[in-house]
């Protein structure tokens, strides 16, 4: 058991080692990288993905996937700004309605996956497609802006030197870790992801667990969408094309197995930080944006590959 724990620590640290190596590398290339200002900016940039990654972690732990995340973020952007600007709904109410709507989209996904039995990849892809259309219809392809100043707080505000989105992200990570490790339904996520039939026969209402997880994924995506909206201060019908893959990358880099049943929140934090360091650092060192894609692909393969290869060797 001791051995096991040690093994786990080393494994999760492998990701942190990658992060530190990256940071050292970027700092050598451009010393500005390691300044507190830049690190905070770096975290602020990744906050949207970090927040959404908490919900995505749950979904992937279940062995499913949520491709709707990007569309939900876009939809939230458009819906919330439409409510505030075109319908004059007060900010607090608009936020509540928006979060409820994003959670409902999650529940719709849960319904398709759990009750109808459509594989999550397909169900959430359909949701993605449909809601990207709906978002564009709502805003008629036009950006919507003109929010109250107070709305800017979520995306642009600061508490001392720390940006509010970073604080929201940290709270979400902590909440995610708490749910996974301390609550009974968090443990159910592992059980359902590991062996759904065994979980069902042990009296776990697996259907409800799936609904819950997709609803949470919708909720966190909604929250991420609000932060993004407040950050860019304008609701657009294509705010977050392809964000789902950014978020999935954070989660998977963090060592959560796409076949479900294993992974930890701390790894996802590391995965998110790596993506954030890469995004920020590659611009700081003037890397051509086409080359950036190549680097991203290679880092993903190396980080995940190392983990997978270890596991594969252990299995023998």
């Amino acid at each position: 058991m001791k051995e096991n724990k040690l093994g786990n620590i080393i494994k999760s640290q492998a990701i942190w080692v990658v992060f530190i190596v990256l940071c050292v590398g970027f700092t050598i290339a451009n010393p500005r990288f390691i300044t507190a200002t830049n690190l905070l900016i770096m975290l602020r940039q990744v906050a949207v993905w970090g927040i959404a990654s908490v919900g995505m972690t749950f979904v992937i732990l279940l062995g499913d996937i949520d491709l709707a995340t990007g569309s939900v973020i876009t939809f939230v952007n458009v819906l919330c700004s439409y409510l505030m600007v075109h319908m004059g709904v007060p900010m607090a109410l608009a936020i509540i309605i928006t979060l409820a709507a994003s959670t409902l989209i999650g529940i719709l996904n849960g319904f398709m996956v759990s009750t109808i039995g459509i594989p999550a990849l397909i169900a959430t892809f359909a949701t993605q497609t449909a809601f990207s259309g709906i978002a564009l219809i709502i805003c008629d392809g036009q950006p919507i802006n003109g929010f109250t100043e107070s709305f800017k707080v979520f995306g642009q505000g600061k508490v001392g030197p720390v940006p509010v989105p970073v604080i929201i992200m940290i709270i979400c990570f902590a909440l995610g870790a708490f749910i996974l490790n301390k609550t009974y339904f968090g443990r159910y996520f592992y059980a359902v992801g590991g062996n759904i039939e065994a979980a069902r026969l042990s009296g776990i209402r697996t259907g409800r667990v799936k609904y819950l997880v997709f609803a949470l994924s919708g909720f966190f995506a909604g929250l991420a969408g609000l932060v993004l909206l407040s950050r860019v201060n304008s609701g657009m019908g294509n705010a977050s094309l392809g964000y789902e893959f950014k978020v999935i990358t954070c989660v998977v880099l963090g060592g959560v197995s796409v076949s479900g049943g294993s992974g930890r929140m701390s790894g996802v934090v590391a995965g998110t930080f790596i993506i954030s360091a890469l995004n920020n650092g590659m611009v700081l060192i003037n890397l051509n944006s086409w080359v950036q894609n190549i680097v991203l692909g290679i880092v993903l393969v190396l980080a995940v590959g190392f983990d997978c290869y270890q596991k594969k060797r252990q299995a023998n």
Partner: protein
Amino acid sequence: GTRDDGTIKVGITIQNLSNAYWAGVMGKLEQEMEARGWEYTIVGCDNNAGTQVGQVENFIISGCDLIMVHPADAQSVEGICSEAMEADIKVMCWDDPMENTTANWVLDNTELGREIGKTASEFINEHYTKDEKAQVTVIGYPSTKVLLERADGIKEGLEENCEDNYEIIAEVDGLEAPEAQTNVETVMSAHPDANVFVGVCAGAMIGSNEALLAEFGKGKIPENYGVITTDVTLQQLDSLKAGNEAVRAIVGFEGSNEDTAKACADMFERILSGDDFSSGKNIYRAIGPITLDNVDQILKGM
């Protein structure tokens, strides 16, 4: 400049770097900046405002002297641009009349659309009458503001400049060539006499030109068939120059890519040298049609 060694550093973020027009202009702009001994970073934000805000943040931290944004959504980058201005960094906006900038190099997309419409009208007026109306297809891409404005402008331009000799029979998507080609084929199947195709970008032109070539064959495209869009890319100019394809005119900007890049770099110079734009910081870009008459001249600078 704030750089330690005195060199000037420019950060550029544009909507989309994998787009032929942008890649072409940026390639020339790189040459211009190299010639002036500047350092630069060019990134694309894939039409994503959130990404773009982050990119501007990165430019600020990396110590740029000048940041140029070609905004995915102008409103979204206002905030971060004001931060850049506060940090004593010059900011230029390409396309939109933004507030928190040193100067704007403005392209009025509705106006550009109108110009496309006007150019198309000339072609239509030449070939069609009230009794034999032009069957016009508008190729747009309604998911970005800029292209939406262009499409609306096109319709206005047609209305203003045409007599009662055309009819819009379809509006389809076509940002990239394959999509445009597919949709134009479908339109031609639905309306066998669809004959004029007006679009908002290079992809729309390349795609519909190719669809017409496939339908009729090179050199056999009827005279009264035509494709008219904007964006200046080599492929479009070649098609125009060939004369036996469907491209009839292109609405261009300063001229060739080189002209555009030079004009842009000149703007950079003016801004960096501390020119005072307080009286009028919106510099409007020139728009004008490219036809067989001036195509050779433009091709020289591609």
